[in-house]
């Protein structure tokens, strides 16, 4: 990573990356003589000139999922998330460490470069091949540098390793939450270090690729609902926080706060927590008290450092609605904490999509997202719920779809682009003849040569109705009994 030796306008750099994203996307749709292409190229060149005023070249580098422009790391925020991720992914696919734009670059060369990338298949073109083709096309004012180490490892190996790590992290975190909540119920001092390491691992996984961990949240264990639920809320919250551009440190704190948002439930009797019928008024009051109990337990059992304080706030506020209904009602007018609002949404989503003893059939993930959107401004912060919906997608990970091609598919990853929010990445699980399929995920945003979508969603399918184990569809065999099997046994 080159050291930055001059001040650089990071806002302009973010605009540069966004515009590069626009250029790379637009060349996939339009021919070179199209006005939209010309406009996109021209805008990019204008921004490039502004950024390059004091430099001989502008170097965009991708390392560990982060983008750097001339050595200065670009912070991701909600507005630039899609473009940032896209550029990182493209560079990783081609084994690129950096793309260097020299001052003498022309629009023509830029167009040639963009079209070359659009037409290349990363599976067939390695770095050397790509470099050779760029030189052959006379592109001398854009050079590319090779990512160190990554070409030696197959992309699949990297993904597999990351997925294994994410799985390990997920299950270990459930175990840690169980241990800590058991200690808390006995008023023993809580050793948070293990939980912190687990949350840090969750953050690392999410920063790399959130979709696998989000897939793990489809594991709904209603017997150990509380522990499972805490980890799921943690994963959702961290992924959410990443979208908002929170720093790594803040993501760690958010993760910890989300992990222990329901700590107060250790003070609620098991038969109330798991009562199948409706609660009496007294029981409901006891249930509501878990927010106060949680903040009290955190104050009692942990050090009052910044991390614990944020967890106390979330434990207390995570059932307060955006319109200040809910519980507990705030004494004087004050704003709700950002972390509380994030966890509120994540908590509600996971609760809705999990079978409970008083509601054996959970709400569909797709339906749950629509419910959150409907309740924006009342139950949930209106801006944040939009971000959550765009993160989860209208068809969240784990949703089973019937497509207009007759195929059946399970959603494995939401679309990065908010314009394609209804077109996630899916694994085709059954062809039109009912034969089980495999293969790599496909994007429902893929178009044919005529510019039409290759596949469209016909309907959402209730996985339970067909006895489908969604977690195993997504993640392969887990060794965890599916919810459906438990219900069938009972």
């Amino acid at each position, binding site marked *: 990573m080159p050291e930055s030796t001059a001040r650089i306008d990071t806002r302009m750099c973010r605009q540069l990356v966004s515009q590069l994203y626009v250029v790379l996307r637009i060349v996939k749709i339009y021919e070179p003589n199209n006005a939209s292409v010309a406009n996109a190229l021209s805008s990019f060149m204008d921004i490039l000139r502004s950024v390059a005023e004091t430099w001989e070249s502008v170097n965009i580098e991708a390392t560990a999922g982060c983008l750097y422009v001339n050595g200065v790391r670009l912070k991701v925020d909600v507005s630039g998330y899609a473009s940032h991720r896209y550029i990182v992914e493209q560079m990783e696919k081609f084994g690129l460490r950096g793309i260097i734009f020299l001052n003498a670059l022309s629009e023509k060369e830029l167009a040639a470069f963009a079209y070359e990338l659009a037409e290349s298949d990363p599976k067939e073109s390695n770095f050397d091949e790509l470099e050779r083709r760029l030189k052959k096309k006379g592109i001398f004012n854009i050079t590319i540098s090779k990512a160190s180490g990554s070409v030696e490892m197959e992309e699949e190996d990297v993904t597999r390793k990351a997925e294994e790590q994410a799985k390990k992290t997920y299950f270990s975190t459930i175990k840690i939450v169980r241990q800590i909540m058991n200690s808390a119920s006995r008023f023993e001092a809580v050793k948070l270090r293990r939980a912190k*390491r687990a949350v840090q*691992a969750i953050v690392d996984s999410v920063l790399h690729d959130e979709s696998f961990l989000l897939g793990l949240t489809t594991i709904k264990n209603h017997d150990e609902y509380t522990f499972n639920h805490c980890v799921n809320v943690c994963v959702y919250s961290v992924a959410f926080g990443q979208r908002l551009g929170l720093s790594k440190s803040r993501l760690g704190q958010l993760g910890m706060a989300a992990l222990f948002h329901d700590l107060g439930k250790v003070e609620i009797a098991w038969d109330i927590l798991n009562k199948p019928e409706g609660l009496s008024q007294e029981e409901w009051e006891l249930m509501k008290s878990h927010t106060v109990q949680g*903040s009290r337990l955190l104050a009692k059992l942990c050090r009052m450092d910044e991390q614990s304080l944020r967890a106390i706030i979330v434990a207390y506020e995570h059932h307060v609605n955006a319109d200040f209904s809910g519980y507990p009602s705030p004494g004087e007018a004050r704003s709700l904490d950002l972390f509380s609002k994030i966890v509120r949404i994540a908590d509600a989503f996971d609760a809705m999509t999990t079978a409970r003893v008083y509601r054996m059939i959970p709400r569909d993930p797709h339906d749950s997202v629509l419910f959150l959107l409907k309740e924006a401004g009342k139950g949930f912060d209106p801006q944040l719920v939009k971000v959550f919906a765009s993160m989860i997608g209208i068809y969240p990970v784990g949703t089973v779809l019937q497509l207009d091609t007759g195929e059946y598919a399970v959603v494995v990853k939401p679309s990065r682009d908010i314009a394609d929010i209804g077109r996630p990445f899916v694994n085709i699980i059954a062809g039109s003849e*009912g034969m089980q399929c495999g293969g790599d995920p496909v994007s429902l945003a893929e178009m044919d040569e005529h510019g039409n979508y290759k596949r469209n969603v016909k309907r959402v*399918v209730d996985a339970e109705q067909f006895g489908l184990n969604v977690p195993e569809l997504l993640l392969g065999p887990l060794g965890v009994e599916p919810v459906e099997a438990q219900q069938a046994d009972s």
Partner: protein
Amino acid sequence: MYFGGAMEEQDIQLTRNWKQVCEITTALARAYKSRQLYAANNPVRHTSLDSVFLALTDFLQQNEMLTFSVTESQFIYYGKAVYSNPDRRESPVFRLYRDGIRFLSFHEGITREELGELLDALSEVSPEGGEGDMDVVTQIWERDLAHITYIAVDDCLDFDDSELAASPEPQSSQAGQPSQGVESLDVAESPESFEPSRPAYLPPEMKQPTLGVATIVDSPFTEEERKSIANVFLSEEDLDEIGQQVLTEDRQSPREKVSEIFLEILDGSWGSEVKTDVTRGLGVLCGDLLEDGNPTQATKILREMKEFASQEASLPKDFVKMAKNFVQARGREGELVRLEPRLEEANLHELENYECYLCELPTSAIPQVYGILARARGRKVREMLCRVLSKMAKGNLDALADMITDPRWYLVRNLVTIFRLMKDRRALVYLEGLLYHEETRVRAEVVHCLSEIGGQEANILLCRCLQDSEKSIRMLAVRKLSREREELGASAIADSIKEKSFRKRSTDEKREFFDALGRSASDDLIPSLEEFITKRSLFHGPEADEMRRFAAMALARIGTEKAIGLLEKTAQSGNSKARKYCTEALKLYKLRSSVQEEKSQEHIVGANQRSDVARER
């Protein structure tokens, strides 16, 4: 087959590496130590960092990666100790080890900044270690160092190191991989057994989906759902709002918010267990807020708790007792000592906020606040603490009594200042004892204090100060007495002047005394003054002349008809010296009178002008 050549070459390379790695780790330890000893801008820090950076990059150019394992006191490279330091407080190795790091790797491409960040991460954690945000692993993790990776264990106290010691080299992750080495989670607990794969076909229902089942969505979206989906798109205003929320969250300290939450809980009807824990938490927060430089919130907490403590009739007994204990606890030394460093750094506005907090403390905290006063260095801080003590000790002067005998004169002076601020006549009994304090500055403050308190008893004590051994005290006392314009003061001044020793005093002192006499005396003392001017037999030499002159000035100062008449008469007398000084005095009187008249004319004109302007408006 002979492998000897290759093995020898490998051994040579390893030996060379060991030497290099020793140099690197020594330089690293040196750079770490320099961070503890020197300020950020000290060149020693920079040069020590440069040394380790150069050595490290040199090694990495040939070897791509450097990994060593971390024990309690050593860095180990290929089975050999390359650095050793058993001193737990000084050693960077122990800090890494204590917080769980067992392997540390540096990768090619490392920057100087990253190395600096690593050393900062080590330095920022206290030697005693941290459970919260401040452990080494978290500090390194948060810094996102792309070319420095580590392997940490969950809990170094519980972890069995022998498992890791068996493997010679760690499987540390590649540089640039985001999961940078937290391979610490309990591998053994991951699910080991797997169910066999599902059959390679799906139920027939999947070919022809059942219609009419409520859970199947008939069309992708309803109209309402379409509206909701359209609302997912974020507008510019949405983005601004989100940006603001993130920025606000970043800037806000959570302490204030948590204290508000705790006060809400205490205001509710929760059981005593909840309130006990929350009150304890508030106590910790209060101290932290003071240390953070937020006394305003701490003051709010204290006031609320005092409010709870006062509601004996309406609140449960145990909670009221808890609240009282809380208030008392805030006045303990362990609590107050935390805000001391903040006081010295505080500006005027901040000092006002601290003053508000300290004034809320119970009277039992007076000795502790006095202790802070004893240690305070800044003048503004001391003034503030004097004000605080004057309010705390109101009606309870005895709480300060012990401090009168403090051997530190500056504290005794501060005590007198406190009495001065209180203006409590009951302090006179203590002030009397201080009239003869050995330190002049204390006695001076006593004079100021007596003047502020006022009244006959205070004036009696002030009169005693006219006899002080120190000229500055006498002059100060006489000035204060003259402002009182009391007969008591005037007689005391006159008596002082009549003393034989008065003649030996300095000119300015004599002038001051006579002037004071002139300001405070009435016609009753004119005969005494006349005697000073005219009686020949008593006075000889320049001292006598001085006395005459100043006595004449005093008459001019008195300014009554009788006094001026005497001056005019003596100005015509046969006594040349008396004539001379009385003439001078008369001139001075006339000059003063005309100046006064001019001033009063100006005042009248000014007043007329202002009323004209007001009328015009």
